[in-house]
């Protein structure tokens, strides 16, 4: 059977790619150290497959057809379309893992979840900035899960917790002996294209980190459900961390680093969770 061997989360932001070479050196060093630490831990757990939980920044979907959750079940996916990404992450095709993707989809349907599916997703900066900076082997197969983190109404935190538990169940019921890691991307607080653009809500971020560290799902749900509409819109991407958190069994959270990153407009957070005992 497959097993969950690593669970991680990391922020992203287009400026990380667009202005990487020109951003202040000390800031680049902090980002590098955090991403590198996730990379070190990811390589140490020797995954055969990486499930990446990310938002879609209006690349695959529009408001005429906007799924809450989409699972990428193809053998391949397209690399990032943004011009600023092509310079730093020139992979035009990324490997998928159709068999596990289909298993995850079927497990979801069998458990009364109703995701949409895609045989070929385009993976934008939200997925690919962490892959680039963490140094994920471009040959490592990916199963993307795209979550609507951008346009209300979005999946509830309660539902994201349930998705995380479902993801864990799918991993542990997959019949091949795969080593599977999970990476949630996005957050923490940031504000994009709204009247508070540039605001990094450190109070929210620290409370959010505390809620993950405590682990308890009902408290995390209550806190995020209450607070997400009161902070910047980018914080909605925390849903991807929530899915990772529940996949980890809602325990074992470890903050790798957090710092407000006004250069990139995000509250930059990096974390891992203890993998379940074998």
């Amino acid at each position: 059977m497959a097993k969950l061997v690593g669970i991680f989360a990391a922020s992203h932001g287009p400026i990380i790619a667009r202005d990487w070479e020109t951003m202040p050196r000390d800031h680049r060093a902090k980002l590098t150290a955090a991403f590198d630490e996730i990379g070190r831990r990811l390589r140490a757990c020797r995954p055969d497959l990486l499930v990446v939980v990310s938002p879609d920044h209006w690349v695959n979907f529009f408001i005429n057809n906007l799924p809450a959750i989409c699972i990428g079940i193809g053998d391949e996916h397209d690399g990032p379309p943004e011009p600023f990404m092509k310079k730093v992450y020139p992979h035009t095709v990324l490997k998928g893992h159709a068999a596990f993707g289909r298993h995850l989809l079927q497990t979801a349907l069998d458990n009364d979840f109703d995701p949409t599916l895609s045989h070929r997703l385009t993976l934008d900066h939200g997925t690919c900035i962490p892959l680039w900076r963490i140094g994920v082997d471009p040959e490592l197969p990916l199963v993307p899960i795209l979550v609507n983190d951008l346009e209300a109404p979005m999946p509830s935190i309660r539902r994201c917790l349930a998705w995380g538990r479902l993801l864990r169940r799918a991993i542990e019921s997959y019949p091949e002996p795969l080593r599977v890691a999970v990476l949630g991307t996005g957050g923490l607080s940031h504000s994009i294209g709204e009247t508070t653009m540039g605001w990094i809500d450190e109070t929210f971020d620290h409370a959010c980190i505390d809620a993950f560290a405590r682990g308890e799902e009902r408290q995390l749900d209550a806190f995020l459900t209450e607070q997400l509409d009161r902070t910047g819109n980018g914080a909605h991407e925390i849903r991807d961390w929530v899915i990772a958190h529940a996949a980890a069994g809602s325990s074992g959270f470890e903050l790798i680093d957090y710092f407000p990153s006004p250069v990139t407009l995000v509250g930059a957070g990096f974390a891992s969770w203890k993998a379940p005992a074998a």
Partner: protein
Amino acid sequence: MTDYWLSKLFFDLQHDAQLVTDSRADMAAVMERYRIKPEVRRALMDDDVAALSPLVNAYLLRFYFQVRGMPQDEFMARLHAMSAPGAPAAEKVTHG
């Protein structure tokens, strides 16, 4: 309130380099391809961030003004002015 055709224009600009080129050459002609309301058309021609903001997803709004060539600092300043004392009350944006 989401304006579908304005959103569609912004979305298409994100995906179609030729449309971007066309919009830079003749924005009015590009708007003819969409069912853009007269008041929205005026806001587009005036680069009126405050008028457009309640009508589209905030990420699409940001992308559009990048395409228009508005510097980020200016874009942010125009957004911030919407919540400044004395500014008209901004509609609660229901999209992220």
